[in-house]
């Protein structure tokens, strides 16, 4: 890496040029895990993640570089933005899982990558939807609570399976993507249930 100001070489881990002291821009090639200095794994300690985010923001946040040059201030904004983005994705289990599937080469957001779900699952979702429609209106909070409990525990089980698959070596990328897609369905149903409760 070359310093943008004095053109000297600097090390991979440096963000301040050892020669002239200039703040360097963020490296675009880092994964979210690299950026927060963690090894890529689904099972992470979220308290540790938050600590790392805070510690790194202390180094890079624009408030820490307010009296530097305009170029360096822009770099610090870019660093802080990238750190916030990495933290946002990694702290959420579903986003983290989707991101890890992406790292393995399958972009879940790309609609051309249609993920086929088992017909059995889709059928069950349809039935759940119907049950939900029947709920609204009358005083059925016991029934709603039962459905919510079922869906929530299923959501947890699917997430666990996805996490185990991501950290293991056996599961294929297609199976992992299916779990992730199922989570989306389940999450939407949970949100609708919460909306009903409100």
């Amino acid at each position, binding site marked *: 890496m070359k310093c943008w100001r004095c053109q000297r070489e600097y090390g991979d881990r440096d963000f301040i040029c050892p020669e002239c002291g200039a703040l360097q821009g963020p490296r675009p090639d880092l994964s979210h895990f690299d950026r927060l200095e963690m090894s890529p794994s689904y099972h992470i300690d979220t308290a540790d993640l938050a600590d790392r985010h805070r510690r790194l923001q202390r180094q890079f946040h624009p*408030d820490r570089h307010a009296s530097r040059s305009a170029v360096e201030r822009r770099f610090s904004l870019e660093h802080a933005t990238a750190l916030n983005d990495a933290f946002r994705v990694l702290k959420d289990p579903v986003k983290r899982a989707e991101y890890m599937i992406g790292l393995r080469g399958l972009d879940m957001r790309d609609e051309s990558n249609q993920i086929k779900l088992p017909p059995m699952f889709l059928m069950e979702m349809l039935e759940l939807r119907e049950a939900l429609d029947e709920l609204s209106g009358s005083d059925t909070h016991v029934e709603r609570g039962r459905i919510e409990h079922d869906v929530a525990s299923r959501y947890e089980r699917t997430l666990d399976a996805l996490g185990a698959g991501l950290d293991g070596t056996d599961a294929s990328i297609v199976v992992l993507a299916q779990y992730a897609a199922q989570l989306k369905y389940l999450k939407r149903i949970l949100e609708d249930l919460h909306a009903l409760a409100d």
Partner: protein
Amino acid sequence: MKAVGIDLGTTNSLVAFVQNGHAQIIDVDGGKSTLPSAVQYREEGDILVGRAARDAAADAVSRTILSVKRLLGRTAEETQKLGFGDARIKQDGALLRIDLGQQQPTPVEVSAEILKELKRYASDALGGEISKAVITVPAYFDDTQRQATRQAGRLAGLEVLRLVNEPTAAALAYGLDKRTEGRFAIFDLGGGTFDISILHLVDGVFEVLSTGGDSQLGGDDFDSSFAKVLLDRFSLAETAVSQAFKQRLLMVAEAAKIELTTHFEAQVEIEDETGTEHCLTISRAQYEAIVEPTLRRVIPPCQRAFRDAGIRPEQLDGVVLVGGSTRSPFVHRFVADLFERQPLSDIDPDEVVALGAASQADLLSAESELRLIDGGDVLLLDVTPLSVGLEMMGGLVEKVIPRCSQIPASRSQEFTTYQDGQTAMDIHVLQGERELVADCRSLARFQLRGIPPKPAGVARIRVNFQIDADSILTVSAEELSTGIQQQVIVQPSHGLTDEQIEDMLQASLDHAEADVNARFLRTAVVEAERALLAMKAAIRADKDLLTEDEADVIAGVISDLEQAMHGTDHRLVQDLTDMLDKVSSGFAHRRMERALQVGLKDVSIDHLEQELETEEQGEE
């Protein structure tokens, strides 16, 4: 020169700075800590700011602007809808103007006058021109309101280092003082705005977990609720009374509110325009019943803030009260019930925001003092208060960055064309939580042109949103196959452009600004005139209550003061005005007693005196 922290408030503004490792308030407006956010454009062409403007004689009310912060970044139509209807507010193209006859200032210009006044006092106190400041804004201010605040700073000749959210600034003042750790809610109810923020303080980092509020709810609303009830009780129709009377009624309502923070009963008296005397005794309980519906409006934003933060009230380590309206025992009790704990209020709720802003100003300076202190080197990590997004087909809003995202933040979204051969795309940027375009705030519209004509759905357009550390948005759009790019720093659809601000700034520099001293003198003289007028009237009315010695001393001070008013020393005028108040305190006390004995039928000058009296006590 040092950077200062400014709390640009709806009713009062303050300026503070850090010295010897401590944030402290700079005296303004004749030795007070607060500068009323009142601006008077005088017929003579000059401008008064502060108490002199706020306590304007009745004939100057039409040239006085109060609570201008409520107009910042708004259109005339919006102010009508929000109920700040003021006959002087006009829409002039993209700009809201306040029509005062000769002058038609915009809210940005009026706010800049307040900032200039604060800057003058700060420069005077610190012995050098102040050019850098951190200005606080309600956490719930949208992009347009933030831009307008920045522009006002610019127009006042200040480099705005950072806009800091008021509750976050308050937390900074508390955290620095107490070196606390844990989760805290900051409940900030000011004159015109309500903010709630939930923060996590750990290892010298202030991480905002969520923020919410109501940018149109404050102590002023208690006064207007109460004033409405008073009109009703006095059998006066709202349409039949003048703007000046309404203004007086609001002041009386405010005085009663302040009285009721320390007393269980307050008297309301006012003479209407037909000369009829109205009088009412109100108990604290009655008053609380009147304002409770208004206060309950804080509940939904609080609930949402907890939901967004992902915590429950019992997980909090404390609740901090900020803003003058939290002085009320009713508000205090209400918050204690709502959060199930006794709130903290050990730092003056009026000063805490300015003190926090001063700390942040120091931390952003190259020669920061706080960074060198153990525990003083802290960092604020804030969130964006409102979601930003784009208009989609069918008048729906697609959120690109949701509210409570940590800032700075950046997010991209890809879109495609919906017609064959489409070569341009309209990009409409919106802010707000609602689904429909019509219910959100329109921030900007622009068009990306030069898209290569292709079948519908083939072109790929990426729109990027970047929110900086001031919560200000930049939007850029790019057609990916050709790399045609367009960047827009979101300019408020209704506001001044940066060019207009620069022109105005240039114009004000050209018309070389009046000497600072001359300005202070004018303010002091207006205050002195008012004090003299009241004193002379009092002597005429109750001469028999004066001892001979007293009369001599008072006459002596009056004559010195009148002489000083023709001189050039503003401090002398101020000191003599204060002295007049001191030497006549015995007389004032006896007059008060007589008024109470005589009953409440007395001449109107007594009412004026009493009103002034209550008001002054409220400020202490």
